[in-house]
């Protein structure tokens, strides 16, 4: 079923236009990689701070306020380039199971991150003081780090395994 949707999609004018624009995939993938760098490093600074081994100079709420906006901007750029890349080569993505696992995990970590962010905004002082910081903050740091790492690996490996599903 997804294969049929993929073959239908690759015959649409938009897809055909992107397929014949030879510079599109290299440029889009470059933006995609740069955005991964921004997102992953932002998450790293927030999560290491939460786990207690980032530099203690800045408060948790300050670190979140600095890095989170860049995470969301990077995620938006990743979504746009990702969707366009998928429209350009839909069958390749849709027939590869790890593509779908990656999408699912992205939704999960985005929801977890949004929830965590609203809690920090609502209870900044509580999160800033180590003594009162909820244990869930550490859990979030570990889980979101693991999710982002798996997401990046899945994304990279789509390129290596898709041909096996043809």
């Amino acid at each position: 079923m997804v294969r049929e949707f993929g073959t239908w999609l690759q015959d649409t004018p938009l897809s055909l236009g992107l397929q014949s624009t030879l510079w599109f995939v290299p440029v889009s993938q470059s933006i995609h990689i740069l955005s991964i760098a921004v997102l992953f490093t932002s998450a790293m600074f927030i999560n290491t701070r939460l786990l207690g081994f980032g530099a203690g100079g800045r408060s948790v709420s300050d670190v979140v306020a600095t890095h989170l906006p860049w995470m969301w901007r990077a995620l938006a750029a990743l979504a746009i380039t990702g969707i366009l890349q998928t429209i350009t080569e839909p069958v390749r993505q849709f027939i590869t199971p790890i593509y779908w696992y990656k999408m699912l995990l992205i939704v999960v970590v985005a929801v977890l991150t949004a929830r965590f962010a609203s809690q920090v905004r609502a209870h900044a002082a509580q999160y800033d003081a180590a003594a009162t910081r909820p244990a869930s903050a550490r859990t979030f740091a570990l889980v979101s780090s693991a999710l982002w790492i798996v997401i990046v690996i899945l994304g990279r490996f789509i390129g290596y395994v898709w041909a096996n599903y043809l």
Partner: protein
Amino acid sequence: MSTPDILISLQNTAFFSAIRGGRPGTEWWFPIVETAHVFSLAVVFGSIALVDLRLLGISATRTPMSKLSEEVLPWTWRAWVVAAIFGSMLFISKADTYWNNFETRMKFLFMALAGLNMVVFQLGAYKGVASWDRSTPPAAARLAGGVSLACWILVVVFGRWIGFKT
């Protein structure tokens, strides 16, 4: 200049043959080393971008420049060393291909320029950071930030293009 003999010799050793998947059962070595390279380069770019955006007055403007540098740059260095180790493994495994590749040379050129820019900045504008730590950085500092960001973007873009051309 043709590929140096030492690199050819290393390329043909058992270890580097395995990295490029040239021995039975080693097909996944290259993808794994490459993925490790991607994670570490992501942190290099993400962290240096943070410092550059601070110099350009775009991000983390509440944080004193010296404090941000102190916190972030160690990550940049550690990640660079790791990226260089994995990158060297990838390079040597197919030294003859990469040595003669235009995109590879451009990547290293822009990395050298980024490094030179960093040295000039550290010995110049950064020496007087105490006077602009909490205010708008001077023109020389903003220029350094812009040059650095542009160079590292080009390093990543040329790095991706190597994958398309080899």
